[in-house]
């Protein structure tokens, strides 16, 4: 049972291109910020979500490094890699550790330091999230993969050009209210329409820009919360991770995104709620097409109709199913293996009523979904305010 796992503290650094600072300092700052919310809790475990430390920073063994730099030397400290879903997978492992009583106070850190390399090195490293022998070898890229999905989707469901603009417009409108976002200005529909094509039909405004970031949450069981804990208690009501074939072409139906469906269904069952009870959905908008697909997989729209929710106001903070409420990866920035932990931090801000200008009114239930590739790995969590 997960019923007594709570998120007691949160911390984050602003997402962006931080050429002047290092992975270890970003990680330590996020952890210290989270710990400062509950200074009396002494962590006995650190779980790190990260994809690119070994390739871009040439740094493995992050557990020992980060634990030392965050003054946590001695703690249990594994690193979890699941490409873009590394953060969600780390959160999942942290929840397992606390709920199984293998640990009492766990720091879950998502960290990505992409600017230890220049653009070509970043692109090459990110290509590893696909099947190296059979997708990268013929020259496919992650953006190309999204292009293949979006092209087929638009043909199959007769979706008009420009249908996905609402995802970028909503993300940037919300990011304008987030002091930790990389981009803090709204964009117009015209900006979307004029964006450079990346991998048709995907354009630059369909792509969340890769960036540096570090975010942390403190997990514990309710009994460990200090007596004077003054913030609303946020409980982890569901936690799971589902995998699919790594390569799109290895799936019996490449447009099914079965892992996203199974992970969403399991999360609703674990939490004992229906999609209608979700107040906000922090989905993974690495590409706008993936946002539409997650709305469908979670049951907020029928197959082929997720894009319609970006046209009728459903996804804005006061809409039926608010998404990317603090900018999502499009405007907050996409710190690859840290995204899942940023989602948790942002959802907790919403549930505490501290999300500022993009606050979802009376938010009580938040769903988080984190994708590695085109739903090759999917981690879903549901958080509830008591």
């Amino acid at each position, binding site marked *: 049972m997960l019923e007594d796992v709570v998120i007691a503290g949160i911390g984050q650094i602003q997402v962006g291109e931080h050429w002047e600072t290092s992975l270890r300092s970003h990680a330590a700052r996020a952890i210290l910020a989270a710990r400062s919310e509950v200074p009396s809790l002494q962590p006995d475990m650190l779980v790190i979500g990260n994809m690119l430390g070994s390739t871009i920073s040439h740094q493995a063994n992050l557990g020992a490094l980060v634990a030392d730099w965050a003054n946590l030397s001695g703690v249990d400290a594994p690193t979890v890699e699941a490409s873009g879903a590394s953060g969600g997978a780390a959160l999942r492992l942290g929840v397992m550790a606390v709920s199984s009583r293998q640990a009492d106070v766990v720091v879950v850190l998502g960290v990505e330091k992409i600017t230890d390399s220049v653009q*070509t090195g970043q*692109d*090459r490293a990110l*290509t590893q999230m696909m099947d*190296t*022998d*059979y*997708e*990268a*070898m*013929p*020259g*496919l*890229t992650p*953006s*190309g993969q999204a*292009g*293949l*999905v979006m*092209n*087929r989707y638009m*043909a199959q469901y007769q979706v008009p050009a420009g249908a996905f603009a609402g995802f970028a417009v909503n993300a940037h409108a919300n990011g304008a209210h987030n002091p930790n976002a990389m981009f803090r200005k709204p964009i117009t529909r015209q900006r979307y329409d004029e964006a450079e*094509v*990346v*991998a*048709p*039909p*995907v354009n630059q405004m369909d792509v969340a820009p890769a960036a540096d970031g570090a975010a942390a949450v403190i997990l514990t069981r309710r009994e460990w919360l200090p007596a004077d804990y003054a913030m609303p208690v946020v409980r982890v009501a569901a936690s799971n991770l589902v995998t699919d074939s790594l*390569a*799109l*072409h*290895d799936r019996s139906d*490449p447009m099914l995104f079965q892992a996203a469906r199974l992970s969403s269904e399991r999360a609703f069952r674990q939490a004992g709620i229906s999609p209608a009870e979700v107040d906000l959905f922090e989905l993974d908008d690495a590409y706008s097409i993936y946002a539409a697909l997650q709305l469908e997989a979670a049951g907020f729209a029928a197959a082929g109709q997720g894009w319609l929710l970006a046209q009728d106001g459903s996804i804005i903070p006061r809409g039926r199913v608010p998404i990317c409420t603090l900018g999502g990866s499009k405007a907050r920035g996409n710190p690859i293996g840290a995204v899942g932990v940023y989602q948790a931090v942002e959802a907790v801000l919403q549930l505490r009523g501290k999300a500022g200008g993009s606050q979802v009114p009376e938010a009580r239930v938040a769903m988080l979904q984190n994708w590695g590739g085109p739903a090759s790995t999917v981690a879903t969590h549901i958080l509830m305010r008591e």
Partner: protein
Amino acid sequence: MEVPRYWRNRNQRYALVGEVCPHCEVKIFPPRDVCPACGQDAKTKFSFSGRGEVYSYTTISDAPAGYEENAPYTVALVKLEEGPVVTAQLTDLGQEPVSIGMPVEMVTRRIRQDGGKEGILVYGYKFRPVMAVAR
């Protein structure tokens, strides 16, 4: 990328050699020695016809290192007539616009070049439109 890796996958890459499951007849590409349909051993070699149709496609302009000489190039998911789908570049497109459902056939072409003029050349499968006469 590394030489052993190129060498290990050469048969698949040059000739679309996969497997057929002796238990349920499912055709498998790339070869994985275990049938994804029935879960039993499947090590019987099978040469695919190389014919199929475009399931989806896109264009890569910002090519990864080693792929620049062909950029921009079209990458497609090709559904082979025997069932499996493969990711591959399209080539010899001429003036014909690519479309979903377009019939294509396999050819062997240079895929990438590593490390400049002296580097490794990698050849492998690409697909081209089926000529009207050949249909």
